[in-house]
């Protein structure tokens, strides 16, 4: 089985989506708090969305790949034990707590 990983662009797109949403949230909160910082600029460290390094992105892709693989494999084990050939979300719920703790 070839070790196919996620496409970095895909992961990057997902992460960017998440970060921009978070940044907007933060900006909204900051606006609510009405911070008027003298040096405050739109591109201050806080309000800038998170960005990712190239190497970091690669590593993240690998980590996500491992995570998903593990989740699928564990859920598959549960599904096999149950006798069904398709993994259902319920199977995933079986293993979810421990899986999250393992990562």
């Amino acid at each position, binding site marked *: 089985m070839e070790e196919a990983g996620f*496409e*970095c*662009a*895909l992961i*990057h797109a997902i992460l960017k989506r998440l970060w921009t*949403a978070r940044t907007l949230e933060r900006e909204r909160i900051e606006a609510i708090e009405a911070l008027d910082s*003298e*040096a405050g600029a739109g591109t201050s460290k806080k309000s800038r969305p998170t960005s990712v*390094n*190239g*190497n970091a*992105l*690669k590593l993240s892709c690998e980590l996500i790949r*491992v995570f998903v*693989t*593990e989740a699928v*494999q*564990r859920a598959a*084990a*549960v599904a096999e034990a149950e006798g069904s050939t398709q993994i259902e*979300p*319920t199977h*995933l*719920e*079986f*293993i*979810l*707590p*421990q*899986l*999250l*703790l*393992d*990562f």
Partner: protein
Amino acid sequence: MDVMLISGTIFVVLAETNDPKSSRVIIFSNYRESVRDIMGALGNVGEPVRATEFIGQSSGKAMKGQSQKVQQAVLKKFRSGAYNVIVATSIGEEGLDIMEVDLVISFDANISPLRMIQRMGRTGRKHDGRVDILWLPVLCTGLLTMRKAIDVDGGSELKAYMRKKAKSKTISKHMQNGGVDSFNFHPSPRMIPHVFKPEVQYVELSIEKFIPREKNVKDVPLPFYPSIDKLTVAEMDLLEMYFQTTGENTCRMSLISYPYFQTFPSRVHKVKHSLRAMMLIDTMRCLQGLETCPGDNKTTSLQEGPCSVNSQPFIISEAKHDTESCFSHTMETNVETVNCMNSDSHHLRIQTKDTIDLTIQEDSTFDDLVEHQEDTFQGDEIVPETPVANKNVSNGGNNAGETANLLVKTRLFQEDVCTNGIREGEFSPRLTDFITSGVVPESPVDDEQEKSRGKSVIRDCILPVQLHKEHDTSPLSCEKVVIDGSTGKNVTSSPVYNGTRTPLLELKNSAIKRRRIIFSQTEEGHSHKSDSSFSEESHLGSGKIPGTVSIKPLRKLKRLRKAEDGDSKVNQENNDPTRYKHGQGKRKSTNNVKDFIEEEAEVSGDSNVSSDKDGEDDNSYEDSFIDDRTNPIGESQPEVSRPDMMAIYRRSLLTQTQINGGYGSSAMFSPDSVTNESGVSSGKTVMSHVNGSCIAPEKVPSTSSPTGDTTSHKRRLSFYHSEGHLPIMNLEQEFALQSKKELVDAPDFTVDYECDDQFYNDLDLDELEAQAISLHKKKLDMSTQKKDTNPFYNDLDLDELEAQAISLHKKKLDMSTQKKDTNPLPHSPKEDSFWSPSFDLGI
């Protein structure tokens, strides 16, 4: 004029140095504003003075600071010679790598000697330098106001400078020879244990190849994939189902769906289970009552799994991660609060090693209650219960700390944890209700009975409160409730409980409750080890504590309300509880009960139990007992009750124990479990009902000769009656009435509900109190005598007691709210059988 001085000095220096080009001057000033002024003045000087300012980074409204980049640029130019004068604030005094200067001018002398030394140290390094200190000799009105502030009187700056200089000199004198001459050195113990003997080693570090530190790790440019496959329709549907584009996941994965499956590690593919996952598994096993030992965990951990015992502090933090769902949330919030929350989570891993330890823990949990431990009944306590000494020792200690200590020492069995969970559940709702509403919770008998029975059945305990599971999960959800309560949060109790069980715990009460829970846990664990029946009893007893609390306060409130002189009543009530405070209901016996029992003993002489009259006594007692409850509890003021909550709580515990002890001491009743139960419950109810007035009645007979045979007889009967609760109550009332009105007619109590008001009004609380005190002393004597009462408690069926107490209480409530004048006889049989606040702590 200072500026002129400066410029003049600068000229001199610049002229004197061999190489005017390479001479440097630095001017220190306290304020940025004066820096600006100096800059302005120096600007007029012109060449060869090239001055610039050097200030800090903070940007205020008036002046913007110099960022680090700007600062570094200034220093660079200063080094190169573009500037040869720097006007700096305190930023330039120490630390920054400013090249050595030839002249230091201190514009202010009003600084600490240390800073002056730092300033002066900017020069004189490689070659001689010069330091000029400027101060204002006289008050100059024409100067800036800030200068004025410095020089209040003429020459103060100079004086201050001289003072500081002298101080500096003194200190340096002291520091000569390493300070041995002036300071007393403490022989401090060695910080490094003697096991380690550091030795000097000569190691030659050789670096084979020098790898220069690169400024930035070479960044791989983000790969660019020009084409991204489109998602298939099926995939799009899948996405829609699980990941709504709106951002709200309609299908959220639930972490708590299959708690049972979390009790064992799932199959792993490549990533092994982490320590946290193993801890979660352990926790789940504990909570669900599966046989698990921490030791087993160590051996059975799939992988590294450090020793859980060794990593106690680790567990503390990890325990939070264990319970992912509700617990994690609550636990994390409790991190800061060093309360029993943490200890609760630890308790899951506590081993009972030492009774003493347990008792200490228990003591700590009841710090308030421990106060009078020693004063009262030391001999009464059952062995498993903490001895008085321990209690006193731990009293007032930091509960969390103590529990932490205990954590290290002890471990709870898993079964106990389950029961503890139940106990917690049982505990919190009642206490909560009691606290918030001051009303006895509906507290359906079923619930409690189930819970108390369910203690052995709590295998399906489920952690999260959000789940709407069966009743079985109530203990855990209660536990969660408790936890949340301890955090002070308002957690919606599990739907299992009636609505009355909303855990609106006050922090203190919750903390107290938690302590009790911990106590119960530890005690249970211990007792479980030693005596299964006892543990069960204790469990039951502790479980019943809340009921007691709930019931007793009710009565108390009623009394408060009824008594016109609320203050005196309250005082008396407060006094009595304080007097009768005991560490734990289980161990202790309330003075009131003991007094009462003693009095009984005195009056009755010997065993004069006549079963014949029990029935009629019950009826009559019930009536009077019902009288007590005529006034709806809701009318009582919750505020008044709140401060007395702890007192009530304590008293309830005390009553429970005391009644038991009383029974034992009196030795008047055959060891009938039912009797015991009722006695216990009756004692409890006695206590709960006992606010100053109750105690007094007990004493009344002793002090004032029994008004009549019937009275004393009734007293005895009530005392011995299996349902004794009511009779006891009646007797008390009787006594009070007798004390006041000297009524001989005890049976009259059956009638009036309105009697209560009058009854209370007529009470002479002071006298009652005095009597109570004497009774208490007697009980003290009694308590020391009896020790063989313990076996009784083992047989007590606390479940029944509790159920009975609850149902009885309910009935009373109903009756009181309705204000029926009807003969309580119809109720009496039921009440007789049920009215027993079965909050026996299994003492």
